[in-house]
Each structure stands twice: as C-alpha cells, then as structure tokens.
C-alpha cells in the first residue's frame, strides 16, 4: 500500500503537492468504496442495454437496432430479454461473475428536457429544479465522515452532487483534456454562418490532423475519452490509499447523440468503450478493495425511442443505469419493463419511467454504506417516500 506521499509521487504530483488538498482520513467508518460516475448529456438507455426480445424493439429502433446475442457484433446477453451493448466486454464479464446489475426504465423525477435542469435534479436529489442547493451525496456524508474528507471529486470543479456543507476534496490532472469531439462539432455548426471563424476552425482542425497523424474518422475526437479512462485509474489510487477518501465522483460528457449516433460501432459505441475501459481500470487499480466496491453509473435522462431525422436520438425520459463492483449482488436486470409499443411510451416518444433513480441511490446508501434509512429518507432524499429503496443491491 502506498502512503500519501508515495501516492502523490505515483501520480506525478510531488511538484504540486502543496496544491493537493489533504487526503488524510483518520479512520473511515467504513471499508466500503462507492464511486459515482455521472454521464452528462443523456445516455441512450436502449443502446446501453437493449431489450432485444421485446417484440417492438427492432421496429422502433430502425437503423439503431443492435444485432441479437450470438450474431456478429451482437449484443452481450444478460437474461434472455436484455443485452448489453457490444462495447461492454468488461461490464458483461462482471455481470457473468455476478458483479453487475442493470437497472432499466429508470429516471429521476425530472420530466422536462433541459440537460442543465435534468443534471441539477439528478444531483440535488430533490424533485424540483433548484429546490435543493446542495448535492445528495454531500448530504449523505455526515454519518460516514471521519476527521477528514471522505469524498473526492475527480474534476476541476466539484460537481453539484458533492457540493454542500460537508467538506469534500477534489483533484484533476494539471493537463486538462482537449475540447471533445462533440464540442468541436457544435462549434463548427455555430461558426457555419461566420466565414472568419468557420475558415479558421477548419484550418486548425486540418493542421491538427496532420500534426497528430490522425485519420479522418478520429479527427477532432479529442483526448477526453482517454483522460476519463486515466481518471478512473486515478480514482482507484485515491480509494486504496490507507488514509484516502472512500467515495469518488467522476464525470464523462459526450452522450448527447442527436446525430449519427451509430449502433454497434460509431460515436456512441466509442463512448461506451471508454466507459467500459474506465471501469476496468478502476477495478484493476482497486485490487483487493474491489470486493468492497460499488460503482453507480447514471445519467440525467434518456433519449427518444425512435430514430430522428439525423440518425440520432433526441432528449427523452427513462434510461438505464449500471451498478458494478465486487460488493454488488449482481447478475441481474432490475426492470419493471413498460414495453415499447405505441401506447407504452411516455408522451408518445420516450421510454416510460417505472423506477425512480433515487430508489437505486437509496438502496446503495443504506445497504453499501450502512447509512440509516431514516436519515436517507429525511435528509438525503427529502420527499422521496414514494421511491422505495431497491432491495438486494449489495451482497450481505
């Protein structure tokens, strides 16, 4: 095991040691590790875990349909009804080992279509936008906190879910990721009407392509996916440090797939692959601590069931979430499946939510971090009585 100084050195941080907040945690009240991965931009849950056996699946998904398990580039079967996207080799292996659970048709209480507001509600844990100014995971810290910060945000700026009265720490590599491909593509559209900017951005992208020897397809892809993969390895180092934090939050954007989403390969498939690699890096880095770990992977809302006119999907409602880790009582899909028929959809276009995302969070806090159910009900997720905690999420 590394001590703090060795940890910092291992992360190439000794020169910046004075900028790194104290990691010391006198004695954590728990061996459990919790990682929350926030996927910003609204993940298409039907691509993450496809209900391939639903009679309407092929019909509603059109060109985004993923092939059945067993066929080339096919889904990775979960339970004979759902299959994981083929990019999720690692997660599927964990599922087979009983270390991964998929929660489907899940949504926060948010029912509109703004990313900003949707992320706010995902993170503040309330049922109104702006109703709570702090994050639910911060509110959950009081019963588990030791003398020092038990939670860390692997981000430049602590995300809302960890902001609040309880002290948390944060860390990000000094070299920030480049602007991601999606951001560049949006800028190209924004610049389209302005020749001065459009020409120059095009020239800059061409030069970068040459300088970095990038092929046309990976052009402008940016390095943020790789940074996420590395960030998950960093998270593991913090979580195994003897006096380090036990809870970590990591973020990844790039999920707002309005155009050219792709199916078994393409933009979204690449993103899933980065997520899968990041989770594998976390597991490797955690070593024996993996058995005490649960990783919740969530997003602010889902996407439309049908393909739009630009081979993508638009903002929707319910989606899928992952719970992975050695501590997870996995190997199952938790879904009160609403179906994909015309009358089954929310507002005629979205996957109908049947599980409250807070039920997942509440179950994890109570079973994994052993936080008192009454405290969770009153303080962490006030007004969530209707969202009963999911059961049997964590091995007992």
């Amino acid at each position, binding site marked *: 095991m590394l001590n703090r100084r060795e940890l910092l050195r291992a992360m190439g941080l000794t020169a910046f040691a004075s900028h790194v907040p104290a990691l010391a945690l006198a004695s954590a009240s728990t061996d459990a590790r919790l990682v929350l991965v926030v996927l910003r931009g609204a993940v298409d849950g039907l691509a993450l875990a496809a209900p391939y056996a639903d009679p309407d699946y092929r019909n509603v998904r059109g060109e985004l349909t993923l092939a059945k398990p067993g066929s080339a580039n096919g889904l990775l079967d979960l339970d004979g009804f759902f299959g994981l996207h083929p990019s999720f080799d690692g997660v599927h292996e964990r599922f087979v080992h009983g270390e991964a659970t998929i929660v489907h048709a899940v949504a926060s209480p948010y029912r509109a279509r703004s990313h900003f507001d949707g992320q706010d509600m995902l993170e503040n844990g309330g049922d109104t936008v702006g109703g709570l100014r702090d994050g639910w995971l911060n509110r959950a810290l009081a019963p588990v906190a030791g003398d020092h910060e038990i939670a860390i945000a692997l981000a430049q*700026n602590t995300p809302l879910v960890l902001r609040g009265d309880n002290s948390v720490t944060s860390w990000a590599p000094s070299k920030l990721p480049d602007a991601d491909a999606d951001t560049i593509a949006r800028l190209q559209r*924004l610049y389209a009407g302005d020749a001065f900017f459009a020409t120059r951005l095009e020239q800059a992208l061409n030069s970068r392509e040459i300088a970095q020897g990038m092929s046309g397809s990976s052009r402008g892809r940016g390095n943020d996916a790789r940074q996420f993969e590395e960030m998950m390895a960093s998270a593991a180092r913090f979580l195994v440090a003897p006096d380090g934090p036990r809870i970590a939050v990591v973020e990844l*954007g790039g999920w707002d797939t309005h155009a050219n989403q792709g199916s078994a390969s393409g933009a979204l498939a690449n993103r899933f692959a980065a997520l899968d690699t990041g989770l594998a890096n976390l597991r490797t880095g955690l070593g024996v601590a993996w058995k005490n770990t649960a990783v919740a992977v969530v997003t602010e809302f889902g996407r439309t069931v049908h393909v739009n006119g630009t081979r993508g999907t638009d903002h929707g409602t319910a989606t899928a979430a992952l719970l992975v880790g050695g501590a997870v009582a996995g190997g199952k899909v938790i879904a009160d499946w609403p179906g994909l028929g015309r009358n089954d959809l929310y507002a005629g276009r979205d996957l109908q939510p049947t599980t409250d995302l807070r039920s997942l969070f509440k179950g994890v806090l109570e079973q994994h971090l052993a936080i008192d159910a009454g405290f969770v009900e009153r303080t962490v997720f006030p007004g969530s009585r209707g969202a009963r905690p999911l059961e049997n999420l964590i091995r007992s």
Partner: protein
Amino acid sequence: MNPTGPVIAANRFGLGARPGEIARVGDRPEAWLLDQLDGPSRLPPAFRGLPESPALFVELQEIRRNQREAKRNDEDIAQKYGRFVREHYVSQTSARYRHAATTDLPFHERLVHFWSNHFAVSADKQPLPAIAGLMENEAIRPNVSGRFVDLLLAVEKHPAMIVYLDNQRSIGPNSRLGERANRRRTEQQFGLNENLAREILELHTLGVGGGYTQQDVTTLAKIITGWSIGGANERGRFADGTPGKFEFREAIHEPGPQRLLGKTYAQSGVDQGEAVLRDLATHPSTARFVSTKLARHFVADEPPATIVDKLTDTWLESGGELATVYRALVEADDAWNPTHRKYKTPHDFVISTVRALDHEPERPQFIVGALDLMGQPPFRPGSPEGWPDTAEQWGGADALYKRIEWSNTVARRVGSRIDPVELGKAVLGVRFDPESRKAVSRAESRVQGMTLFLASPDFQRR
C-alpha cells in the same frame, strides 16, 4: 435610445460586461463612459503595496553590488537579480489584471491599456520586467485624461522608457564629455544613440510618413542627449542622482540651438527637448496618427474616415486635450454602429472572460499563462511598436483553436456553477445572437454550454 447602446458601451468601450454592468450603464451610455474619465479618486487597491520606481532601482542596485562583492561561485546571489525581477513582474502583472477584472471604470482602464501599448516598453531586457508595469502606473495612469503633452513628457522621462531605448547611453558629440572622449579616441561607445528619438517620432508622435527625415531623427537625438536617470551606472560616472528618477545630465547634452522640422530650438538644457515634445504633441501628423490608432482600437480595424477626421480636428482645436478627444469619439454616432465588430485580442478576450464570470482567479498565473499561450504575454510585445490591433494580425487558425481550448479549460473550472444562457444574456444583452443562444442552451452540460459561449463569435468580438 438604441437598445444596443449599453451593450456596446460595456463591451466595445469597456473591458467586457460583468454581470449587472449593462443594467448599471443605464439609458445614457455616453455619459456612463465620459463619467469615467477622471479615473478612480484614489489608487485602486490592487496597486497599493507595489513599490515606486526609485525604491525598486535602489534594490536592484543593492543586488548588483552584492553580486559584485560576492565570491564568484555564490549561485544564490547570482540568481537573485533574475528572481527579484521576475517577482516584481508577477506582482505588477497580477495587480494589473486583478484590477482589470473588477474595475467599475473599465473605459478608463481600457484607455490606460491603450496608452501603455502605444508607448510600449517590452519586458525582454533587464530590468524591464520589473518596471514596465510601474511605468503604466506612474506615467500613464495619472495622465490618461489630461493633455497629450503631459502624457508624452511623463512617458519619455520615465526610467523604463529611457532604459528600454538606451537614452542614458546617448552622448552629444560636442558635449563636455563627448568632446573629451573624442579627443582621446579611446572610448568608442561614446556617441549618439538615436533609439529613443526615432521611436518618439515614428511611434509616439508623428508616425511613419508623418513628415520627418533621418536628419530630424539625428537632431532630436541630439536634443534629448542628457535625458537620463539617477544611478544610470552602478558606480563611477552617472552613478549620481536619485536612482530610478529622471536626471538631466548637462555634461553629455549636445549644446547649442537645433533645427527640427523647420523650426529652430534655441533653448538650452532640458528645456530644449521639452519644447520639442510640446510642439510634437500638437503637430497635425501626431493628431492624425494617434487619432487613427484610437479609432482603430475602439471602432474598427479600418476606421471610418469621418471618425478619424473628427478626432484629428478635435485634437488640433483643443491642443491635444485627451478628454475632449475621447468625448468626440464617444459622441460620434458611427462609433456605436453595431455592424462594426472588433475581433478581441487575447488580452481583451481573457479580461472579458474573467469579468463575465466574475471570477478573480486565486493564481495570477491563470491569466498570465493564458496570455502567454495565446501569444500576448503582458508587457512583452517584443518591440517598441507594441501589440497589433487588427483581426488580421490576431486571427490565426491555431490561435483560434487555443482560444477554444482555453474556453474549455475555464468552463471546466467554473462552468458547472453558472448557467451559460443567463451569462450570455447578462454579458451580451440584446446582442446575444439567437443562434448562439440556441447553441448554448442546447449544450449537453453547463460546462459545454460555457465553452460554446466563450468561443462563440458573439463573445469573441466586441
């Protein structure tokens, strides 16, 4: 009233709107600008605690003396000079940008930066990094809204300018010391140095093509021989006087009347040069050259001739009263034309970003590092000509990409706490283009929305 007025006042004439600033401009944007011309009533807090030039020069001399006296291998002392200079560069630049980020008199401050660049001293030779910022505070700031001649005299006599352009080394051939040296023919470096004289004519007053000849440059060089500083040398000759203060040295001043631009200057001593600068300050070429620069800075890369003419006439009629010239600029209708758009320099972009976010970074390196990256390190334009002021010169493709990357960095740092659409409305008001607004509001996260906003053509122009 034109609804774009307050937005243009804050962004084109000011340093970029801070949240709430457009509302504070109110319905008389011209008045909001002109009311700023007196500047702050007292030294802004950011600058308190900076040393004045004389004190700084005393310390520099002290370090040099210690170096001379130290044993040869004392590395600590050897590095001390560079370290001292760097520290002062950092404290002066951080004060400059801290103030720019928060000032409620942004038009005044933009004028300070304009003149500082007009009279550029570049911090690439010692000890300029430690005094360039002091020149801005000591010579420019107090004279920004006074008469141009006072600004000109203060700058040309400031130790930073004199040392930067080597005037303390310029020796009149017929001065007392010059004659003696010439008789001995030993010390060859004794002679005229035309550096400062040339830049006064070419860059500070008449401008290239302003009607002067090489003969005029040489003559002006003679006229300002003796314009030196106290403690120009650490020991021996010219070590006398108050270190870091203007010192006229009769012993090296070229004596006798001089004829410059068709006029004879019979004065003696320092009066001769001052008389020349007084005439140069109100010369028609100066009026036109500087008016053009002002109009280019505030209105458009190719400024409308009507505005340049109006400023030039005002300059000549008022005898170079800068406040009157600024008033003419602010009252020119075309200066408020929404179709004129200036592409922000990196300096403008970084300051306006920090102001928009109401974010005073804890580490000044955040700003200075950004300006280094984007090619405009503070006080280091690399030549007395200063930084260029047109899109053509700042609009490189890679430079734009660096702005995008920096926008992304800034957004990651502060973006998740701020709604980028609200920010756009606060900063650009009625000029927040619907397309930009749509793009920002549809971003997949606040951080991405902030990146798009900062990199948008709307925000990249003023």
